[in-house]
């Protein structure tokens, strides 16, 4: 936080300094040298600073409170890195010195820039490369949502549940600003409860019922008798049937009590058929010794809702190799036609009418006794209806004996150990696993189901700081290197990778590689980056990274004057946002130079944007987004995307200032400061309402307080004046879209400006992309130390004109991404609560 505000503060001072230069009083101050030096800085750099800068920025006259005499000694550059860095940007961009001052030649400007750059970075970068440290990071909304999606295949809408995250350093994954107010923790608990209930279905929450048919509830077709316990004794030709109303489809326990019933007490084969006469079970019953005895068989079966019939009939013989679950060897029930409507009606009529015991002796016709038939359930939904996470989480379910769970500890452990590893993104020690196992045990002891216990354990896991936070502490075996930094372990790298490229949890592949220590190898890291960027999950790079980089999130809720812009609506806004995201994805996927984002003469649009841009469109149901050429238009790259043009406009008109500022910030990486206080709104000053915007903005140059900033900013913005406040091309209007950038780079219109930026500012743009990527990847604000890293990444990728995916790879391979500076736990670090 401190680094952040200080840098902004100094940037602001710098700009104020520039502003003030227009009327600065030039006071000659005698400069004395502390001592002659023959260094390159003293020979070239410092004399140029003295010649062009020091008049307005010295100890006495500190325009914008900038004192450049601090640059006299280049060895102090690391200590004043922010100042040096800002000076460098101003010089290189041409924003300083101001036009009314003595201007350096192009050669002098380059010489001064090089000298500052060398002094600044040769010194700092020669020192130990500091990887910096990252504070424990709470999962932000998108990360939480994606993590839940990837862990449980559950679409959990965080924006309905959690407040939006604070943004720090341009991104909402900034560890230092991601706070945890008590209200949020409560929301996490509520969310966890919801998610657990969706991830694990608890069968005990089903209204399970047992339905039983015995005695007068069993229908018989054919000859039968009734034994003293109301079992139905079937003759060989007869069969029994039962019917049930199944209200809830699902898995049922089907149970039959009965026995063989014949004189010779031989075993009696039988089969159970469904209402279509298809055999679903076959076995044989033994006879019983006592009259009250019976045997029972049972099996599980998924039953559809509705009326279900079962037919029980004896078989002449049981086919060999019969498999209980697949009694395919048993042929269809041949007597199904005897169970016709009238037989069913007759049976139903008899149900509930007490039977008369009429059995006396076993005779030769008897074959089978059917005493009871029941279905119990549903114990589970039909497997197709279960959440897909169920099988992943419940690797084993504790079994029940007489309604009591027997092996909760083992079963819970078997489920939880891998689950905890997945959710905490690292293997869990026994102590931790035991805590969660105990939750399941406690629940079953309270008579909750095992499933409910697992829901509770999962809820707790989702609230654990080990899930909600990404905390990087040195592994127990990790030794600091010569610089005192720790290399991230493979497991820690896996999380950094996945939350950088996917804004989500590592997948099994990453975890497996990490456990095998493979992610320590550069080759494997590169391979994984390529794989991950090809994965659909990398859409987060556009939805999270690019959208925030370009500020597209601010488009939500942007209003437009409905009279002036009738085409503008929320749907069009979505199409606009998608266009920019799509181009970013394309450039990244194809590993194209980042400059392509500025100058692409093609784009990706849907039907409504095609109409809006007045571009040809052919319906294609498979693909709602088409790649189209822009060569015949004035549009090139993101700067001419309707999204960016709308974002940088006011409800009723365009804003060259905003557009210029956007380019300074997001393309050139040199954000201007806020305007000085008490600056009146445009139009409220001179009262000439008929003045064009350009004329009005000319006031910026009349007003010394504004001139130096707006000189560059406004020029950039003018380039896009051909496009109105919602980014539509102003057909046939006579508009002046010409301008000039420092260094005499003249242009007319957005297309030319985009091409100039592409050709002359590719390196700066690449550096900006690199800085943004690194900040996003690390979840922290960059420090001047990081400039060494971003410079190196940019230089390394210069040969191929800065391909985007390559830069991403370089960021992953960089030292700050793979190393961290660890704070050692202080002795007072014992938990206080």
């Amino acid at each position: 936080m401190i680094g952040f505000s200080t840098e902004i503060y100094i940037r602001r001072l710098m700009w104020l300094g520039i502003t003030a230069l227009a009327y600065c009083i030039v006071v000659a101050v005698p400069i004395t040298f502390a001592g002659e030096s023959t260094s390159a800085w003293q020979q070239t750099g410092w004399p140029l600073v003295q010649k062009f800068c020091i008049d307005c920025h010295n100890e006495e006259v500190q325009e914008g409170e900038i004192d450049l005499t601090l640059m006299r000694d280049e060895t102090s550059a690391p200590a004043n890195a922010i100042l040096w860095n800002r000076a460098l940007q101003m010089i290189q961009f041409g924003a300083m010195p101001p036009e009314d001052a003595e201007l350096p030649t192009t050669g002098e400007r380059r010489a001064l820039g090089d000298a500052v750059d060398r002094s600044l970075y040769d010194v700092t970068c020669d020192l130990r490369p500091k990887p910096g440290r990252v504070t424990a990071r709470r999962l932000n909304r998108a990360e939480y949502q994606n993590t839940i999606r990837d862990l449980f295949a559950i679409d959990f809408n965080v924006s309905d549940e959690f407040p939006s995250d604070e943004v720090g350093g341009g991104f909402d994954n900034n560890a230092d600003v991601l706070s945890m107010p008590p209200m949020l923790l409560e929301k996490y608990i509520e969310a966890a409860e919801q998610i657990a209930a969706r991830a694990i279905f608890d069968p005990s929450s089903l209204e399970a019922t047992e339905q039983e048919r015995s005695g007068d509830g069993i229908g018989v077709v054919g000859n039968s008798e009734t034994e003293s316990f109301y079992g139905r004794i079937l003759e060989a030709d007869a069969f029994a049937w039962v019917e049930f109303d199944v209200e809830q489809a699902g898995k049922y326990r089907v149970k039959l009590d009965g026995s063989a019933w014949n004189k010779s007490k031989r075993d009696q084969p039988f089969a159970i058929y469904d209402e279509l006469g298809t055999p679903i079970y076959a076995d044989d019953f033994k006879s019983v010794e006592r009259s009250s005895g019976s045997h029972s068989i049972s099996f599980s079966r998924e039953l559809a809702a509705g009326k279900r019939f079962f037919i029980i009939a004896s078989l002449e013989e049981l086919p060999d190799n019969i498999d209980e679950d697949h009694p395919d060897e048993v042929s269809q029930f041949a007597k199904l036609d005897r169970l016709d409507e009238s037989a069913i009606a007759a049976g139903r009529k008899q149900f509930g009418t007490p039977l008369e015991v009429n059995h006396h002796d076993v005779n030769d016709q008897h074959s089978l006794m059917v005493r009871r038939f029941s279905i119990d359930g549903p114990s589970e939904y039909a497997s197709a209806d279960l959440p897909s996470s169920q099988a992943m989480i419940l690797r084993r379910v504790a079994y029940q004996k007489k309604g009591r769970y027997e092996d909760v500890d083992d079963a819970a452990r078997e489920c939880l150990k891998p689950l905890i590893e997945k959710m905490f993104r690292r293997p869990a020690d026994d102590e931790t696993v035991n805590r969660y196992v105990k939750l399941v045990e406690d629940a079953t002891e309270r008579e909750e189901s095992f499933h409910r216990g697992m829901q509770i354990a999962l809820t707790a896991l989702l609230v654990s700081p080990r899930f909600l936070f990404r905390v990087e502490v040195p592994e127990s075996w990790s030794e600091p290197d010569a610089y005192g930094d720790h290399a991230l372990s493979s497991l820690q790298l896996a999380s950094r990778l996945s939350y950088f490229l996917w804004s989500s949890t590592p997948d099994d592949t990453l975890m497996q590689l990490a456990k095998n220590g493979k992610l320590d190898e550069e080759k494997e890291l590169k391979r994984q980056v390529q794989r991950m960027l090809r994965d659909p999950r990398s859409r987060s790079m556009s939805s999270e990274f690019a959208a925030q980089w370009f500020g597209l999130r601010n488009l939500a809720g942007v209003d437009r004057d409905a009279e002036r812009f009738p085409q503008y609506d929320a749907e069009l806004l979505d199409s606009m946002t998608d266009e920019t995201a799509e181009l970013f994805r394309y450039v990244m996927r194809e590993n194209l130079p980042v400059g392509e984002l500025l100058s692409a003469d093609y784009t990706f649009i849907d039907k409504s944007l095609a109409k809006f841009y007045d571009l040809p469109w052919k319906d294609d149901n498979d693909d709602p987004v088409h790649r189209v050429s822009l060569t015949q238009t004035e549009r090139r790259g993101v700067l001419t995307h309707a999204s960016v043009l709308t974002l940088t406009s006011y409800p009723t008109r365009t804003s060259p200032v905003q557009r210029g500022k956007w380019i300074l910030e997001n393309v050139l990486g040199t954000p201007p400061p806020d305007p000085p206080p008490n600056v009146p709104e445009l139009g409220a000053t001179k009262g000439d309402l008929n003045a064009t915007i350009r004329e009005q903005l000319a006031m910026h140059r009349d007003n010394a307080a504004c001139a130096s900033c707006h000189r560059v900013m406004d020029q950039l913005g003018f380039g896009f004046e051909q496009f109105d406040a919602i980014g539509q091309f102003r057909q046939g209007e006579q508009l002046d879209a010409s301008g000039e950038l420092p260094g005499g780079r003249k242009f007319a219109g957005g297309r030319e400006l985009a091409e100039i930026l592409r050709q002359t500012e590719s390196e700066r743009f690449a550096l900006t992309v690199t800085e943004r990527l690194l900040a996003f990847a690390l979840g922290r604000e960059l420090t001047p130390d990081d400039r060494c890293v971003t410079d190196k990444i940019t230089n390394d990728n210069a040969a191929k004109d800065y391909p985007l995916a390559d830069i991403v790879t370089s960021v992953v391979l960089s030292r700050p991404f793979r190393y961290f500076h660890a704070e050692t736990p202080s002795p007072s670090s014992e938990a206080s609560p």
Partner: protein
Amino acid sequence: MIRKFLNQSDSPVRCGRRTLLRGAGMALGLPLLEAMTPISRSAFAGAASAGGESPIRMACIFFPNGAIMPKWECSGTEHDWELSPTLEPLQNVKSKINVIRGLAHENGWGKQDGAGDHARSAATFLTSARPLKTSSRVQLGVSVDQVAANQLAGKTRLPSVELGLTASRGAGSCDSGYSCAYSSNISWRSEAQPMSKETIPRLAFERMFSSGDAKSRRELNFVRQSILDVVADDAKQLMKQVGDTDRRKLDEYFSGLREIELRIAQTEQQDHASLPDIDVPYGRVDSFKEHARLMYDLMVIAFQTDTTRVMTFMVDNAGGNRSYVDVGVKEAHHGLSHHRNDPETVKKIESIDHYLVEQFAYFVEKLDSIKEPGGTLLDNSMILYGSGLSDGNRHRHNDLPIVLAGGAGGQICTGRHIQCQDERPMGNLFLSMLDCMGTPAESIGDSSGRLVELA
């Protein structure tokens, strides 16, 4: 029905107490004293602290498989008698109970329905009606407790409470073609609607003393608290590994935890203040004795707080097969009950019978320890204890083992050994009890009139 007579001071018979007090004009002084008992501070204090007369309560307790009758039967006359070995645990309250002999459930006998005596023993127990022998569409009669509960509806938070120690089987047949509903319920709201019972003490407690919302909130908070405990341990473990910056982040987490815990604690505190002071564990209770006594405790509190005035309790389902290991009986109860007069087996049943009476005595004594206007809670109650079978070995449905404790607010003289002249339908006892409850009925099941001997 109220029989007014003064008991002689040397007689063990106690009755007419309410009448006596009222007559002597002493009732006025009592409510003040009662207001000082802890329960009256509870939100559930109900009628007990409202001053004036205490309501009459009724509980019916069923035990399965009959008893060893020779050990159950007491000797002596109505007023001069001794407790039998089985009933000996009731010694302390002998003057407040009546042992009644000669009651029968004619509808318990098999007759045209054949086997299924156990199912019928529970079905008839409080209905005196014959169950339709079917496994699907049950049909019986309204039980005595529900006759009372219907008429008392609205007077208390719950019209009636049904408790047991063994869960019901929802459907199916449990005994020779009888639906399980017959075996596992003694309380019947209508001919076709058994009142299923609560067997888990905690759930019974929640039903008695919580609204649905309070119950689910309590459960939610309970689970949340256990979750917070676990994650706090995770966080503490993590705290030991991190440096100061991360510590600050985790501190935010901890203060969040503490805030939620505090809120849960506050809710619990408020909740607790509104609940009777009894510790009821979550989940099933393993030990029979603990389980039974917890249920009896709950029954005492439910009466004391006037949460309900009508309760039933099944020590076990009909034909129950519990093993009473506490008294050294490992075999299953029902199996043993068919003892075929084997002395060893008979002895085991005797010790079970005795053990069950011990638990009942615990309940009755506890009721008697609660002072109320007009005497004790027991004095203002009628507690029926018995089985639907006498001789379990032969499935006999006459001369049932029956104890009626409590004097129904002085309406029944206690301390008697009542021996009916001829076999009397249990239904007659029920009609008399309903009179005492102030909820009279014309008939119940096969009743033939009031039980004149009780008066």
